[in-house]
């Protein structure tokens, strides 16, 4: 809800911390249609998650061995920085770009897309980057950072959106996008090119191939 002009978790907000002048003004979340009283309709918010490619697209079946993701790898740490979103909609309500452009996907959906872009097991990267690269996507962000300021989980959707901007730009400017998470896709394409023992494949590099 909106408490004294700021979107907040009302369940975890101590009144004496926010009611500076002894006045408490409560309103429904901004940027969302109001159902009744303080209830906002969150459908639009979650539809945008789907539109931003927020669904995991597996590349392996249950017959395959579990993917090994090193906790200290860059992709894993990038995903880790945004993974704890709980979908409360505070960033969406705080975002001025959402208020200006009703089609803008919003900080939470783009943050979700960025965590999946950094998921080495995911196979839907091109579609996802195409989905977030449009007029209502990551490039509409003006880095106002109200989302980062107000996120109750202390995430930085702005940082995630900045990552998406780089990833989508690399799609345009490079024939082969330097996505750090290509992982499995890259391995598959290498298998087509390189034959030989497993160790030989492991030592594959493009100048030698």
């Amino acid at each position, binding site marked *: 809800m909106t408490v004294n*002009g*700021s*979107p*907040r*978790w009302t369940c*975890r*907000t*101590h009144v004496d*911390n*926010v009611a*500076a002048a002894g006045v408490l003004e409560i309103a429904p979340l901004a940027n969302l249609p109001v159902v009744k009283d303080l209830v906002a309709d969150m459908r639009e918010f979650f539809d945008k998650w789907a539109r931003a490619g927020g669904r995991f697209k597996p590349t392996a079946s249950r017959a395959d061995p579990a993917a090994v993701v090193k906790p200290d790898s*860059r992709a894993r*740490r*990038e995903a*880790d*920085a945004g993974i704890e979103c709980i979908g409360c909609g505070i960033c969406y309500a*705080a975002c*001025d770009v959402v208020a200006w452009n009703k089609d803008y996907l919003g900080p939470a959906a783009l943050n979700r897309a960025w965590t999946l872009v950094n998921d080495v097991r995911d196979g839907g990267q091109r579609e996802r980057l195409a989905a977030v690269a449009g007029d209502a996507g990551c490039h509409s962000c*003006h*880095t*106002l*950072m*109200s989302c*980062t*300021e*107000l996120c*109750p*989980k*202390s*995430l*930085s959707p*702005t*940082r995630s959106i*900045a990552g998406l901007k780089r990833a989508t730009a690399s799609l345009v400017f490079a024939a082969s996008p330097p996505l750090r998470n290509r992982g499995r896709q890259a391995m598959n394409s290498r298998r087509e090119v390189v034959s030989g023992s497993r160790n030989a494949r492991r030592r594959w590099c493009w100048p030698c191939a």
Partner: protein
Amino acid sequence: VAAEWLGFRGEAAEFAMTLVAIALTLLGLRPWSRFRRMRAPRNHPAWWAFIVHRISGVALALFLPAHFLAMGLALRGEAPLDEFLRWSEQPLVVAGEWVLVMLLAAHLAGGSGFSRWSSCRGAIGRRRSRRSRRDSRWRVD
């Protein structure tokens, strides 16, 4: 020492400076997050950087056609441009040029987003880890 350096002497000055030091210390000890919670949702550096960037950008965009018009005077010969350059030596116009340079600097500063670097660039999740160390689990406002 600060009182002496500022030119104040005597016990009263020392007492006053001690009070100032205590006040500053208490202000420093007071959790900054409490002020943050009381602030208006848009009252933070990145939002102000955006406003500076946008206003200076609009002002510069308005200036640009005037600049081209002035440069275009040279197409009509030497005399019209020289006349304009003489006109531009007036103090008010010179002051305007200074404002223009300031607008350019502000536009650069607002657009490069120095205020946002703490969370957008640098080590992964630097801001997050710093904050999550402070409040180890879920934040309670």
